[in-house]
């Protein structure tokens, strides 16, 4: 007689018909493949954990965003936010799709040049540009977004000795109804700082005021906040045109569109409630078209969208190290991926699915990472089926910020794989080894002998 397939015994308390604390929808099918490639095959070949990026999803998402805006406003330009994911392969996909580069440090600036971006198409944001950074940006005729008055004076000083008139914009912060207001960057709209900076720029005669920039925050769930921001920048542009008789060339509304992730504490899943590109595009375009701007000569609309473009294209595949019952009876799983790789688990309740078929029975589970640290919690409560040691899991929508904010902490960072549009796999960043870490260390002579 052949024996039956074994499954661990489970008992689950029934919560009579009420949606759970985390909403109704916790049932997902397993993620056995990504872009047609079995997850098991990927982890067997490249190890576990491993980051996986889908070139197809990157390109189709970009095209969707581009279409949402270009069908509503005549001149639209995306600039890829390097900090969101600055792997060369990723940046080059966006540049091939027509994106400029948006950078916030000398390092990111050099990376954009290294990726072949024309200096004229690099937007240089951020509060921390050095004198050397600014000189390089001026030489390359990049778009310099001024963050504070000290930077403005520094620029005027450098420009005095330069043959080229730097093209600049100011970053404006403002009340759009979004809390918290990001007022630490740029010049305030409401209290007149922005006008003060504009007067100084124009008055200096040394800088060319090309654009107006704002970045109102991140993961903004109300498209109307962008309508408010667009209207305020359009008002500024119209006033500049009245007062100084020249036209602002572009309005840059920064990033901040929500991806499909679910924010921690959100009752409903992100894909059900987060605005779409069309929602944002509608709010922004109608605000600009109905503003005081001259409709016969509208400025270019620049968008520095980061997470909403790449989040869904990224996956993190890993496996179960152990099952563990906590002292209060709650079930937990220890995974081989933790907050060292998944920085965004501090913000999101990531969608996490088993990588192989599973049975119906589920239990509220805590998902821990492998670090010997209390903060290493990947999901603090997820209704999850029974998995055993070695079973695979897939974390979804991890394309933004994780591959730049990850930490070399306790363990080494894994490989990153790109699946191209033909279904071929490429290692676009190799895993770290002991040598990656000790290679840049130096041992003083007196410590070399034991």
């Amino acid at each position: 007689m052949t024996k039956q397939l074994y499954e661990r015994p489970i008992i689950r308390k029934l919560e009579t018909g009420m949606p759970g604390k985390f909403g109704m929808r916790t049932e997902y099918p397993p993620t056995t493949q990504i872009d047609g490639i079995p997850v098991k095959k990927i982890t067997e070949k490249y190890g576990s954990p491993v980051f996986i990026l889908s070139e197809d999803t990157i390109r189709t998402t970009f095209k969707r965003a581009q279409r949402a805006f270009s069908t509503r406003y005549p001149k639209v330009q995306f600039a890829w936010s390097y900090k969101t994911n600055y792997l060369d392969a990723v940046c080059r996909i966006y540049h091939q799709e027509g994106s400029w580069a948006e950078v916030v440090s000398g390092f990111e600036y050099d990376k954009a040049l290294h990726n072949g971006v024309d200096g004229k198409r690099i937007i240089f944001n951020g509060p921390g540009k050095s004198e050397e950074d600014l000189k390089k940006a001026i030489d390359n005729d990049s778009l310099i977004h001024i963050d504070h008055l000290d930077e403005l004076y520094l620029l005027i000083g450098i420009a005095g000795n330069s043959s080229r008139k730097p093209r600049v914009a100011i970053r404006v912060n403002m009340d759009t109804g979004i809390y918290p207001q990001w007022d630490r960057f740029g010049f305030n709209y409401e209290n007149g700082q922005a006008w003060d900076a504009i007067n100084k720029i124009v008055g200096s005669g040394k800088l060319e005021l090309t654009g107006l920039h704002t970045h109102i925050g991140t993961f903004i769930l109300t498209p109307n906040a962008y309508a408010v921001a667009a209207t305020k920048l359009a008002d500024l542009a119209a006033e500049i045109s009245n007062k100084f008789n020249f036209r602002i060339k572009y309005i840059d509304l920064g990033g901040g569109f929500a991806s499909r992730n679910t924010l921690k504490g959100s009752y409903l899943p992100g894909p059900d409630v987060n605005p779409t590109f069309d929602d944002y595009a509608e709010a922004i375009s109608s605000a600009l078209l109905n503003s005081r701007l001259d409709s016969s000569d509208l400025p270019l609309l620049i968008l520095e969208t980061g997470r909403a473009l790449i989040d869904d294209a990224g996956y993190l595949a890993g496996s179960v190290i152990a099952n563990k019952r906590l002292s209060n009876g709650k079930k937990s799983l220890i995974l081989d991926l933790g907050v060292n790789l998944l920085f965004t688990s501090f913000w999101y309740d990531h969608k996490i699915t088993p990588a192989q078929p599973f049975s119906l029975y589920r239990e509220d589970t805590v998902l821990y990472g492998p670090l010997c640290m209390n903060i290493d919690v990947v999901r603090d409560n997820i209704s999850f089926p029974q998995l055993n040691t070695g079973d695979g899991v897939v974390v979804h929508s991890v394309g933004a910020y994780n591959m730049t904010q990850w930490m070399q902490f306790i363990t080494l960072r894994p490989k990153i794989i790109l699946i191209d549009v033909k279904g071929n796999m490429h290692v676009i960043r190799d895993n770290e080894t002991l040598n990656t870490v000790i290679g840049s260390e130096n041992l003083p002579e007196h410590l070399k002998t034991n």
Partner: protein
Amino acid sequence: MSLIKIQTNIAISDSGFLFNPATGESFSVNPIGLEIIRLMREGKNETEICAAVNETYDADPAIVERDLHDFIHMLRQHQLLDNNGGQNN
């Protein structure tokens, strides 16, 4: 060997639903969980239950023992075990 006793007033259906009239709570168990509860009702001890499961299912005996331990823990957590039962395992 320790005996695990499910409280006698717990109603158990063939489809794997448990009802505790004392608290009004309902539970569901998977087929193997149901089988184990039946074996407990028949007065089988842990060793006997493990042996019975290994007889019917294709599984590593060590894993069966571990899972049974976990299952008993959960039954106790949900206060489905007789207070005197299973305390000395």
